[in-house]
């Protein structure tokens, strides 16, 4: 009782400073106060997220071109959607994207989990190694794109030199970025180099969340290291691994910056991921309506896949 009355006294002592404000705030209900706090966020969200989305949906049904903003806008219905979904070039871009997403996510997950597993063993100097491994992730994609073009340079590039050193092949005999078969792999390698640390970090958090005593119990239960890995480590870290896969999958589905800097979609359109096709349609051909429709299709695809995936993730988590 005493404590309560003391604390209410303190509140009242603060009142005289700005009585008007206090009275106004005290006049608001909890709900009104809640609205007061979230309104700025909602307004901002509406202005920079929801409005552009709705506007893009509208544009996707018209022949609007941003470079001819004054030309009359004609309602086309679902024409763009139809032509995009039947366009072989679009499907080629989707295939390139799928190749990029599947391989990067696979490689990053396997390597990232492997590294996390090693780092989790807490050997001497593991802190230093963690920092070193995390470095690529901290760089800007623009920087990474630029210096990997140097590394991939056939005459002076370190990458070609290393491959030449280990395989005995002539360093200038192949071009990672200029070759039709190699360039899709070139962008996979760079993305894996840059983002494996990120997956490692998430997996490490998962591995660290498994208490030591679980392993102790398993040891007493005569579980071999192999069995401990398969029946404890992996299932318990699985939600974290799946989360990393989700993040990397979404991120790489809309990959633009690094690929644009490395290959610009070339040679030909062998590395033209969906975002590059989209950017070309929107800002090179200025087909705003068409590109809006494509953007909506990409959005729905990512959103739909991510939703299905999150459901699966929740099922794993609640297991």
């Amino acid at each position: 009782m005493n404590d309560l009355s003391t604390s209410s006294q303190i509140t009242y002592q603060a009142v005289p400073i700005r009585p008007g404000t206090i009275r106004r705030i005290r006049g608001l209900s909890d709900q009104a106060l809640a609205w007061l706090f979230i309104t700025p966020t909602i307004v901002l969200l509406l202005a920079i997220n929801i409005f552009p989305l709705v506007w893009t949906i509208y544009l996707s049904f018209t022949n609007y071109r941003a470079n001819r903003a004054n030309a009359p806008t004609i309602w086309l219905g679902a024409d763009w959607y139809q032509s995009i979904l039947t366009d072989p070039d679009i499907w080629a871009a989707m295939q390139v994207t799928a190749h990029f997403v599947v391989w990067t996510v696979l490689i990053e997950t396997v390597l990232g989990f492997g590294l996390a597993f090693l780092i989790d063993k807490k050997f001497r100097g593991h802190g230093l190694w963690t920092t070193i491994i995390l470095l690529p992730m901290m760089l800007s994609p623009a920087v990474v794109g630029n210096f990997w073009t140097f590394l991939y340079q056939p005459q002076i590039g370190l990458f070609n030199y290393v491959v030449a050193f280990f395989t005995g092949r002539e360093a200038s005999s192949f071009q990672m970025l200029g070759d039709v078969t190699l360039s899709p792999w070139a962008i996979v390698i760079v993305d894996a180099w840059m983002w494996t640390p990120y997956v490692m970090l998430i997996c490490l958090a998962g591995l660290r969340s498994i208490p030591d005593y679980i392993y102790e119990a398993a040891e007493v239960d005569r579980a071999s290291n192999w069995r401990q890995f398969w029946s404890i480590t992996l299932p318990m870290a699985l939600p974290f691994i799946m989360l990393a896969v989700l993040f990397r999958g979404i991120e790489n589905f809309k990959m633009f910056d690094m690929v644009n800097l490395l290959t610009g979609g070339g040679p030909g359109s062998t590395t033209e991921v969906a975002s590059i096709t989209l950017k070309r349609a929107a800002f090179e051909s200025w087909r705003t309506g068409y590109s809006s429709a494509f953007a909506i299709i990409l959005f729905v695809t990512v959103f739909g896949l991510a939703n299905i995936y999150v459901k699966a993730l929740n099922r794993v988590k609640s297991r």
Partner: protein
Amino acid sequence: MAKVEIRAVSKAFNKTQAVSNLSLTIGDGEFVALLGPTGAGKTTTLRLIAGLEMPDSGSVRIDERDVTGDAPADRDVAFVFQQYSLYPHLTVFENMAFSLRAPIRRVPEAEIRIKVQEVARLLHIETKLDNKATQLSGGQMQRVAIGRALVRSPSIYLMDEPLSSLDAKLRGEMRLELKRIQTDLGATILYVTHDQTEAMTMASRIGVIESGRLMQIGTPREIYENPINAHVAARLGQPAINLLPAALFAGVPPAAATVGARTEHLTIARGGGDVSATVTRIEHLGDQSYLHLDIGGRPVVTLSDPEASLGAGDTVSLRLNKPLFFDAAGGRVAA
């Protein structure tokens, strides 16, 4: 089941000596309780036997075989951890079957099913077998943890305060249950606890451990009636033994510095006793009462008949009846 022997085992963690020069033999089928306060080295002793810790010196022998350097898996022990240590992503059934499914054991699945169900019935968790381990209450989790050990027939069951998280009623039931199981199976159990009731009621022998040393080991009766020092005396008895300066009493042995008076060593009378005391408080527990007294500024707690018409401020007279005597270092002095 087997005989387990630890010889002169010591273990330090950095500068903290957790266990020093501890020797202990647990006979086949015996139920030994290690009793001591938190940080006394009880759990470390268990972990040393399980192989979860390696001793700095000394040896561990199970069934006459030196297992000091062996991994936990090679020792054939079962461990019930204080914090349950259940596999959270597995069901109760899978948790209990986990050790039986070790490839090294080659137990057929049908046999595993029968064994797990049998133990689950014993522990009253047979309806929970399909639940996730994390969907259970604390008491149920602890029973699963015990069940996980019971499905096996190891050389020894090592139990680290397995009942500490249960409520009083369940703890009482489980105490009887565990003792019954131990007798039925003829299991060898080393049981760590700081609860004297558990130690007194279940163990065939109690080892009192303090600061990493085994102070005394013996039957509950021996430990209670014949403690070798004041530490051991203070570990058993409810209310705790009253340790009073010998100077307060007449006729104590010359070497005695402290008089240890348990409830049964004190006779309360209205007058004519050895020393007079003032009643400071009475706690009524129903069938008995805790009587808090003040003897020359020293608090004394004893039991009294709830019918006794005593109240705070009353003066009573105490008579000592074959109390225990301890020297200045706490060692026992003969009466």
